């Protein structure tokens, strides 16, 4: 009998990365092994949770996929070359190669030059390509405002958000949601914060005097927000405890302001 399947093997099965024979062997094992079946279900649930999170929030990802499909369609058209279009396509190819050489991905020198001329994120779109802009998500901050966010699934039903070494006057906005994941977003002057994550945990450190928005899943058995080791917010089961004075708790959100 096959021994218990490793987590990597199960993940590979879920990701469709096993060969047909390997997949069949693991599937057969899952039929007879409750422990591995439960582990596979756990991994599948975790994967589904992330997929669901992406489905809700992933419109730029959809843009990426659309671009990908667009590229594939173009590539397929290139494969089906007919003789009457050879010269035209050769000219386009030459132009394309020239654009590639001078525009971006082929050349590190181009990347350097771009950064020298335009600074960070300067790979701006020339010509009509600028029209292909990312689609903003409903949760995204206003255009031009810097932000960074990390979402994590609870681990064994627990989720913990830790804020360390915050700037004075950092606002921490906490709310609950029906999503299965916890979302931690740093915006404004806090956007340069460093994120650290482990199973069921997101740590935000060095946040400037902006805002950290924390969304906690109602489905989590336990959810905690800590600031420099001191608990600010805790939800166990159905109960919520505020362990630090909130600057605003009138609405559906609770806002803490870090004081020195």
């Amino acid at each position, binding site marked *: 009998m096959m021994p218990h399947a490793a987590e990597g093997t199960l993940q590979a099965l879920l990701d469709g990365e096993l060969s047909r024979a390997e997949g069949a062997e693991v599937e057969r094992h899952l039929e007879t092994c409750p422990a591995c079946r439960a582990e596979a279900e756990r991994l599948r649930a975790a994967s589904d949770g992330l997929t669901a999170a992406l489905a809700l929030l992933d419109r730029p990802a959809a843009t990426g996929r659309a671009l990908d499909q667009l590229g594939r369609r173009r590539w397929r058209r290139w494969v089906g070359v007919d003789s009457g279009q050879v010269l035209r396509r050769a000219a386009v190819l030459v132009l394309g190669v020239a654009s590639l050489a001078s525009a971006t991905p082929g050349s590190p020198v181009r990347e*350097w030059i771009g950064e020298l001329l335009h600074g960070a*994120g300067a790979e*701006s779109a020339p010509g009509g390509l600028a029209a292909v802009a990312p689609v903003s998500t409903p949760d995204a901050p206003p255009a031009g405002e810097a932000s960074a966010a*990390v979402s994590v699934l609870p681990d064994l039903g627990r989720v913990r958000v830790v804020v360390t070494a915050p700037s004075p006057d950092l606002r921490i906005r906490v709310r609950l949601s029906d999503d299965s994941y916890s979302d931690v977003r740093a915006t404004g002057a806090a956007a340069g914060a460093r994120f650290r994550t482990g199973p069921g945990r997101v740590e935000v450190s060095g946040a400037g005097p902006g805002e950290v928005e924390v969304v906690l899943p109602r489905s989590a058995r336990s959810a905690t927000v800590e600031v420099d080791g001191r608990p600010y917010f805790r939800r166990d089961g159905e109960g919520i405890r505020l362990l630090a004075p909130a600057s605003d708790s009138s609405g559906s959100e609770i806002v803490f302001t870090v004081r020195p």
Partner: protein
Amino acid sequence: MSIATLLLLSLLPASDLHGTVRAEGAATPLPGATVQVVELKRTATTDERGYFVIRGVEPGRWTVRAAALGYRPHAVVVQASGAGSVRLDFDLQPEAVRLDPVEVRGREGSTPVAGAASSGPGETRLDGRAVRLTPALAEADVLRAVQSLPSVAAISDFSSAPYVRGGSPDQSMVTLDGIPLYNPYHLGGLFGAIDPDAVQSVGVLAGAFPAGVGDRISSVLEIRTREAERDSVRATGAVGLISSRFGVGGPTPWAGGSYLFSGRHTYLDLATRGAEALGVIPASLPYGFSDAHLKLDQDLGGLARLSFSGYVNDESLVHRPEGEKDLIDFDWGSEAVGLRLWRPFGARLSGELRAAYSAFGGRFNAIERRWDPERQQYTDSTSTVVHASTGVQNAIVGAGLTWYGRRHQLRAGAQLDAYRFRHRVAPNDFVDEVDDFVPLFDSDHRPATLAVYLEDEWKPSDALSLRAGFRVMAAGERGTAWMPRLGLRYAPTSSTALWAGAGRSAQVMHSLHDAESVSTSIVAYDILAAVPEAQGLTVADDLVLGGEWRRADLTLRVEAYEKRFRSVPVTPIPDDPLGQGLVVPEEFREGTGTSRGLEVLAQYARGGAGLNAAYTLAKAEREVDGARFTPRFDRRHTLDLNGFAPLGSRGQVSARLVFASGQPYTPVVGVMAPHVFLPEAGGFVENGNGVLVMGEHNTARLPGYARLDLGARRSFQRRWFGRPTTFTPYLQVLNVLNTRNVLFAFPERGYEDSAGGGPSTRLRLQHAPQLPVFPTFGVEWRF
């Protein structure tokens, strides 16, 4: 993803993602972990500091997944806002069971085969756990364990010096945390002098080097010590047959740092003295050794890090008996110290400064006391038999920069090496007796080299990775070597990869050993000197072709290589290798060489058990003075099977079985019997024992080699002082079958004729044996 899509995506504003992957709790960095932006199939591999960079992540929310061998993968969804960088550190939880003690993967900064693409020909890397589990002679041995990989061979059971792909040990560089070590051996080379408990992994770069690697022509053996855990102090140790070792590591008293200390000391002298007293052995061995290593890692804010490594290895053979004639006072050892400062500048650039000093030195005095008939004792009025000293010193300063692009990674750097090779065998009263073995000489070479390199690693797609670079080494009067370095890796599927690589390498030093002397099978220590100025730098060109296929529990890796050596200092072919001395100070010729071979490494792991099978087909040749010959370390076929299996819930058995074809030797094809004409006898009569007539150099082969080593261990858990403590008694038996493997062959005459006719006048071939059956036991502990 198509080129058109790549072009479009690359033109959008993008964020950079960078950070570290560490073990949860202990906070030790995890080198070789993969971080992937799943939807974009953008993958990075962490470097030795656990650091990764993924440039140009398009705006949006992406799943970012970190995975490392032996740890549970962890995934989060990250929003990249489209400008600046996002710093994201992962803490991974250890899995209960670790498999796969041998990894095969590309260079740092490249991508493992399981991910997408990589930079070129892979290196093989041995996990520290495998180092400790491989059965070894008396002591767990880093250099012996690495010989289970197909690229590395040993010349004998008595020398742990690495012979890699047709190169001799002086053509391989052993580094400890990036610092080159010189002669890191104990007991004449019987085992390596690096504490296995401190080792995190050993990597073997056997060819097609990246531009940042040098400067040896055969290989680089990178020994990386682990970084201590930062959550608590942990201690390890072992009491073995001939020595004990102790290690301790944990967080520094000040914030942001960790320390790791390990040390080892022998009691071989006491053990042999006891054995002598009991009559087990005829004489004790007044030999001692100790080694120690200290590593400090300090975070300097942000991701900047300062690392310090210090290493010392001391050996002595001191025999000063009162009232006896002979006095021996030998003392030798190596030392190394290094400092590395590394810091990133945003997510696009990182830089490193390093300085190091490494040395090997020894002094060897053998004295024969004179008999004073009046006082009826040996007096201090002495005669020197041997008075010799040797020294290698290497001071290093270097700097490197890495620029992380979206699809490119540019690396540039420079390193200045200043050497001193100082050796002296002083005149003495017994020159005639010793100069065959160690001739008188006095040499002092002080070469310096400056190496600069530039390399671009380009990943035009997930499947393809190209590496192109250049290394230039200037060595003053000894010339300048221009060394192109190329690598290509193509991974058409997630389970297969093909690669090719080529490059040139050069080195400024060589060993004064006579490589064809039988003594090289016994003494591992190299006596290094600068290559002759007239000859210039020794250069090698190599070509590597390989591929890898892996599934969940099986990895198969095949690599073929060809290497050509030029300007190799080679000793003249000896008339009699058996009588040839150890050191040849001046008579080197400019030689050439080739080596080619095929290496297969199959690794199977399932349920806590693993088997690594390495097969090597190799052929090496040297040419000097117009004569071509096979060097004496050459073995045509080697099969090395190394396996581990659970023994109950807390035990483990391990076995290593090696078969290899015999090494070459020079046959005796006849004996000339000198005759003298004696008129009184009426003609010629035989005079003396005769003179051996040697055949062509190394045209015969010794019998094949076979050895089975077994080991077993079991752990016991106890709580001491409120903390879990693990004791692991172990038993290892080397050469269980007591196979009489041959060290060298020698002709014998004068043996008793079986017919009872007295001493025979005929020659017969005798074989000097290698290691007999040898049990080793001890206990390891972890607190």
